[in-house]
């Protein structure tokens, strides 16, 4: 019997597991294949929902679901923390001392924020890139009535590349609805020479920021936050004061990747951009945020990659040629306010072309916030 282990229960891991279960239905029934998903969390968090949670548009119960209800019943769910991947011997070591052997491994360990990498940020900053941080920020946004908000991207790559732009637009609308926008200054900062990594999007966003009197600074690379003076200190030598700092903290790959020596300096797994195999390993695939690929760390990327990996792993198990290739496809909604949104799609060769922001795309996003669970289940 061939054993497929998927490490990680986020978007990438769940979709891959469900697609594999669909493709290997007969092999599993005849006990020629087995799929195990290993994760240390019983619930999955719909992370894009955190953007809405901070404005009280979604609640915790809306964005958390039990993994056992999201997985095909043919997938074995093992709740355990993996401590090491022994790639040379095709084994995973677990915190409880057990080991799991695999014939094929799909690494879907995602990414994590490391606010502690910027001195002072934990003491003085807020973020919405995890549930605890988002809940804390929700309280603060509701209380904030006057002063300067700095939305600062503190490192690239980070999860959901457009989220910092979205939160900035939503902050503008949030305080406008409350009638206090005039009392609040909003500044957005980005580490490179434009407000977003892709030109077409940067041009649109800069124009919309200007229309809304949202300030922005580029080439802004924070190295420290002075919690007492309430200033962000940058590599470029600037000191930017704030009353409320909303940071997009630096990101790294999972600890188990770093501890297993499978990642680069920041814990991203070197991955073939087309086959999605981990470089140097023929029986290891990588999906989602865990890769070192030059694509967005976004749910849609995980989704499109999962299709390719599931097709190739199932082909290998059935003795067919694994010919599926990932071509860098990504799709992102961009909320430009509480009543309008745009979206972009792009791949390795096609640059994004945002459509004019409108209400229907905003509703598509609102709808998708609910329908996401069907994507995780492999239906949508």
């Amino acid at each position, binding site marked *: 019997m061939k054993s497929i282990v998927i490490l990680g229960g986020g978007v990438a891991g769940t979709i891959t597991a469900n697609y594999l*279960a669909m493709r290997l*239905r007969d092999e*599993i*029934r005849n006990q020629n294949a087995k799929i195990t998903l290993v994760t240390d969390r019983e619930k999955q968090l719909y992370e894009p929902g955190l953007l809405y949670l901070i404005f009280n*548009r979604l609640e915790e119960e*809306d964005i958390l679901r039990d993994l056992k*209800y999201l997985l*095909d*019943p*043919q997938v074995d769910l093992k709740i355990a923390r993996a401590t090491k991947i022994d790639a040379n011997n095709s084994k995973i070591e677990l915190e409880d001392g057990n080991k799991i052997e695999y014939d094929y491994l799909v690494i879907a360990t995602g990414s994590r924020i490391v606010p502690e990498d910027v001195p002072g940020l934990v003491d003085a900053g807020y973020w919405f890139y995890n549930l605890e941080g988002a809940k804390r920020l929700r309280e603060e946004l509701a209380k904030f009535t006057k002063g300067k908000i700095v939305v600062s991207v503190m490192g690239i790559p980070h999860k959901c590349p457009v989220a910092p732009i979205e939160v900035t637009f939503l902050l503008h609308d949030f305080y406008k609805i409350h009638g206090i926008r005039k009392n609040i200054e909003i500044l957005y900062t980005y580490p490179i020479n434009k407000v977003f990594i892709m030109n077409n999007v940067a041009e649109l966003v800069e124009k919309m920021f200007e229309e809304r009197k949202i300030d922005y600074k580029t080439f802004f690379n924070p190295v420290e936050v002075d919690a007492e003076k309430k200033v962000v200190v940058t590599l470029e030598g600037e000191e930017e004061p704030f009353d409320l700092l909303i940071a997009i903290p630096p990101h790294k790959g999972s600890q188990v990747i770093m501890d297993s020596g499978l990642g680069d300096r920041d814990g991203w797994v070197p991955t073939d951009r087309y086959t999605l195999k981990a470089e140097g390993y023929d029986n290891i695939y990588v999906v989602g945020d865990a890769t070192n690929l030059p694509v967005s760390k976004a749910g849609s990327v995980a989704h499109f990659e999962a299709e390719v990996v599931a097709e190739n792993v199932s082909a290998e198990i059935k003795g067919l040629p694994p010919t599926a290739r990932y071509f860098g496809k990504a799709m992102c909604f961009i909320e430009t306010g*509480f*009543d309008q949104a745009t979206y972009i799609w792009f791949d390795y060769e096609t640059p994004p072309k945002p459509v004019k922001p409108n*209400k*229907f795309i*905003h*509703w598509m996003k*609102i*709808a*998708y*916030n*609910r*329908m*996401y*669970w*069907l994507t995780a*289940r492999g*239906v*949508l």
Partner: protein
Amino acid sequence: MDEVKELEPLLKKISENREYLEDVVDKLVWLEKSGNLDAIIGFAAFIKIIQDSISDAVVDRNMEMLANIGLISTKFTSDRTLMLLNALGDAICRCEKQPEPVGLIGLMKALREPEVQKTLGMLLNIARELGKNI
């Protein structure tokens, strides 16, 4: 003279985008000639009504309901469910002869058959799950 001056920015824009505008005019003419333009105008009004009358809450509630129905439906299309439904269909359609009436002794005898025992186990599972939610 002032009126002409006011038109300058518009003319500049037309000149800058001449290539695209020619395309747009061609398409408009095509739509008008084919009679589709009136239909599109009607459809645009329909879209506008939706835009003006629907709210985030309506989209949110309906999609939540659809997602819940979708997740439940996956349970009824899972491999195991399909096998069970298939077996039920076989039991109904493929019986070689009409089922014979079974009395208490026949029932006791049948309870020793492994297939019947497995089915009873499944029925108990169903009863337990239902019990948890009643």
